[in-house]
């Protein structure tokens, strides 16, 4: 008799999609989406992760201080991104420590999303879009990797147009 408890659910292949800021990876992701392919936007999901992951935001406040929390009354409900950014972007070891907590949490979040898509989406594969995918080791969990490239000058122009920033800030 088959032991069904050992059977793994069928998971779709994962196609990683990455590229520098202004390269056009989000435009490419939109085309994949129009083809019916589910797209996981890691940057967006990471931004909402603190709201959804109580353990992660508790760790942030414990490690970087109560000023890094956002509260409703006494309840810690989110992260004060500006306060956190002020700390970690001026201290590379603090940034590395934060990344060591956030990146596995994003991977876990992706795994859960991917399992749901594999079961219900009826698509041939899923797309995992992230600006920093290779940098976090996330590409090692992908079956294929698509890299979007554009000349540096084009990327800077697109980014400044989108973010209303000066070129020196990119």
């Amino acid at each position, binding site marked *: 008799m088959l032991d069904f408890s050992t059977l793994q659910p069928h998971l779709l292949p994962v196609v990683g999609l990455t590229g*520098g800021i202004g390269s*056009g990876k989000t*435009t*490419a992701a939109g*085309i994949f989406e129009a083809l019916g392919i589910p797209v996981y936007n890691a940057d967006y999901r990471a931004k909402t992760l603190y709201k959804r992951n109580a353990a992660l935001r508790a760790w942030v406040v414990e490690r970087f201080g109560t000023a890094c929390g956002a509260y409703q009354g006494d309840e810690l409900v989110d992260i004060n991104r500006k306060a956190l950014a002020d700390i970690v972007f001026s201290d590379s070891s603090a940034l590395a420590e934060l990344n060591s907590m956030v990146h596995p949490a994003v991977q876990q979040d992706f795994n859960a999303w991917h399992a749901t898509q594999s079961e219900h989406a009826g698509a041939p594969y899923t797309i995992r879009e992230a600006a920093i995918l290779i940098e976090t080791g996330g590409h090692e969990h992908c079956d294929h*990797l*698509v*890299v979007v*490239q*554009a000349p540096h000058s084009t990327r800077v122009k697109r980014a400044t147009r989108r973010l209303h920033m000066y070129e020196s800030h990119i």
Partner: protein
Amino acid sequence: MDQQISDDARAVHANFVLENADENTLLAQVLEVHRLITSERTLEDTKTP
């Protein structure tokens, strides 16, 4: 951009590189990647065990 690696470093790991200097060519490149991935999947699915 500080946390990001260069295009050359990314390309080393890539199965597909899309050149997006001109956005008019991106659609055709994405369609080709989709075709290649799904045709590979179709071949895998029809393999006799």
